[in-house]
């Protein structure tokens, strides 16, 4: 499924299913290029949490199924506020309001991913944007560093813009 996604020469962002297939693949790929601070509990699972209305449907589960990160299995969870502490990646749906309060409540070590340029202004780390009918993303490196996350320079290279 992932291979098939990447082979698409051009992603038609106007069609929600394909747009979110791409975003699901990106979400998985983010985990490859981000280093989390060592955790004491050594939980066996890395959780990708979807907060609010889930736009991915089955897609994200299919993309993540069977994947792992440094020997830890990856799993998808759909959650409501308050955010449980076990989320390493937090995808914030467009339906969520009052984001600054949400981010203030998060513990460190959570990679926040959301939609639109305003997501970074509100304090998010990675925001999906559509440019030239393609899915791209902006990164706020400063916010990530404050949360103890180290984002690979290769990821920063392919970001549309990076705030430092």
């Amino acid at each position, binding site marked *: 499924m992932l*291979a098939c996604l*990447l*082979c*698409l*020469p051009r*992603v038609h962002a106007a069609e929600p299913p394909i747009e979110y297939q*791409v975003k699901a*693949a*990106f979400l998985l*790929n983010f985990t*490859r*290029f981000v280093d989390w601070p060592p955790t004491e509990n050594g939980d066996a699972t890395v959780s990708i949490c979807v907060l609010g209305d889930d736009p991915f449907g089955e897609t994200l589960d299919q993309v993540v199924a069977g994947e792992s*990160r440094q020997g830890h299995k990856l799993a998808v969870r759909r959650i409501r506020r308050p955010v449980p502490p076990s989320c390493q990646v937090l995808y914030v749906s467009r339906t969520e309001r009052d984001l600054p309060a949400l981010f203030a409540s998060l513990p460190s070590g959570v990679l926040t991913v959301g939609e639109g340029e305003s997501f970074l202004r509100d304090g998010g780390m990675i925001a999906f944007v559509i440019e030239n009918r*393609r*899915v*791209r*993303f902006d990164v706020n490196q400063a916010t990530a560093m404050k949360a103890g996350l180290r984002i*690979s320079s*290769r*990821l920063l*290279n*392919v970001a549309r813009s990076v705030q430092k």
Partner: protein
Amino acid sequence: MRAFRDLPIKQKLVATFTVTIGTALLLSGISIVGLDSILFRGYLQRDISTLVRIVADNSTAAISFDDPNAASETLAALRARTHIVSACIYRVDGTPFAGYARGSASPACPPPAAADGVRFTRHDLTASRAIVLTGRRVGTLVLVYDLGEMAERRNLYGGLVLAILVASAIIVFFVSSRLRASIATPVSQLAGAALSVSRTRDYGIRVRKFASDELGLLVDAFNEMLSGIQSRDDELKTVLLSREAALRGAQSARDSLETTLASIGDAVISTDIDGRISFANRVALGLLRWSEPDIRGRRLDEVFHIVNEYTREKVESPVAKVLREGAVVGMANHTILIARDGTEIPIDDSGAPIRREGEPAQGTVLVFRDVTARRRADETSRMLASIVQSSADAIIAKDLNGIIKSWNPGAEHMFGYSAAEMIGRPIWTIAAPGHEDEMPRILARIRGGEKIESFHTVRRRKDGRIINVALTVSPLYDALGRVVGASKIARDITDQVEAAERLAKLNADLRQSNEDLKRSNEDLERFAFVASHDLQEPLRMITVYSELLVKTYAGTLDSQGEVFVDNIIGGTQRMRNLLADLLAYTELGARSEQPAGNVDLNAILRMVLENLKVAIADSHAEISVGDLPAVEAHSAHLIPLFQNLIGNAIKYRGSKAPVIGVSASGSGADTRFAVEDNGIGIEPEYREKIFVAFKRLHGKTIPGTGIGLAICQRVVERYGGKIWVESAPGRASTFLFTLPGAICPAANAAGGTRIRPEQEQE
């Protein structure tokens, strides 16, 4: 190998050294280049593998996030390695994702290989590597590296080996030449000396001795042998030279005498004491038509026949006379030599004895020459003199100062002075008053070698009469080509000049009266135009007020009054028609301002028939129109032309309804137009008068202005054509005309675009 054996010793030495050292250097050079190639291949393989791995790692994010631009930027960093031809990133399904190519070429990479590795081909190296993200293959990097670098290294090392080879060859050359000085040089000098002695026979050559070894002894023996030969050779040469000099002296004395005789311009024949020919030069042989071997030894009488030109008697050979009298004899004039082939040649000749001082004659010498050319020149000058004497033109020779040297009878007759009067007098004796300076000017031009031809001027006769002359004056040259005088030929052209003047005056008078006529004609036309134009105004008033009178007082006029007014209206109507036609006629004479256009006569006919609609209907006329060409003309001229002709055909009809045909026949400038009718016809005596303005054949019974046909003629003549009429009186008339100036060649040649007009049916 045989070739090597025959080489000189010094070259053998050089060759041996060169081959030995060259071989050693070449072998070591090849090994160095070969070894370097192998080592460099290994190095390159490791280097490119590393490079490919780095690039592949750096591309993982770009391919994961489907960002070809970022991948292209990564690849673009390869620019720093100039030997990288191209680099491409393929997606995992093999479709291209991003590429880089050296320069501005579009990237061309081989398709991705399944396995990683580096492959050498002849010209390049292809490295392929999987791009892996967390153990999963996400794409493939393929990189093409050209092996130009290897060739560069090979060239560098090869060049180095070559340079060393050349340097050592030079060193070998110098070392071996030092070596050969002591062995090869003496031997080759000895060989050279021997060769040069046998070639030049110069026994004075000696070989220099370098050392006292075996070669030194050989040189001494060789030199000694040479000096022995040399002394004997010198003696022999002295004897030979003195004998040769004596022989040459005798030969040259005889040669120079014979050459002299052979090349002089006169014919020379010498005989012995018996009159046999011992020598005849080229000129003599040519005149006698004999050849040298045939003539030698013959008696002179056999070949030299001479007769008197007038008496044709044989003349005694001068040789016989010389032998008899022992003295030089000349020859009588008018002697003709009859050559072997019968040709007669006038000659001058003389004979003389050949003898040594104080001894009797040993033979004779006969000298003669062809005088044909001189005779011909004499005849020519006699002939020229008689031409000059008998010429009616005056032929005068004068020197450069204008002093007359000859004066022929023509001159005596023309100027009235005799030759005796004029020779020795200056030429200006015959100058006409006012033309005195002409002669010095002519003489100045003659001095410059110029010839004056057909110069028309005047001269004065002895009796004072002035005559017109045409002069041709040419320079006279002496034998050295210098101008020494002038010959002047004068012809009396007084009659011609007077006739030409009379003709010119006549022409001028004629032109003047022509212009007067034209002007008065133009005045008349202008008058007619203005008159007819201005006359229309009062006429209009008469018409309108007459009508107003009838209208206003219709009830109050009695019948006679109404007839009067009708007559007024009828008269003015006729006068208006007359004036309109007159105006049209005079306007035709004026130059048109607009250029002529291409007019379709079929269209013109349609307009004319429309204008005549009422007349056609009233008369029940049947009109047929044939194919008509287009013409280059003004339609304002063509409408009245056809309208008058057809109008006349209707007007002058007989008792039957008119049947009228309009047609064109022939082509190009010969096209002939015809308007024929079945009307009353025209008597032969009137057929020319009808075209004159105001000439009418019919009284008021048939209304008309008398200008219609004059207008037709004017239109036709304006375009260079002719109009005439053929008629059977009482039955039919045909008006024919041509329009050569109006015919367009193109329209006629095409022939297919004519419009067939609809037939008028009543």
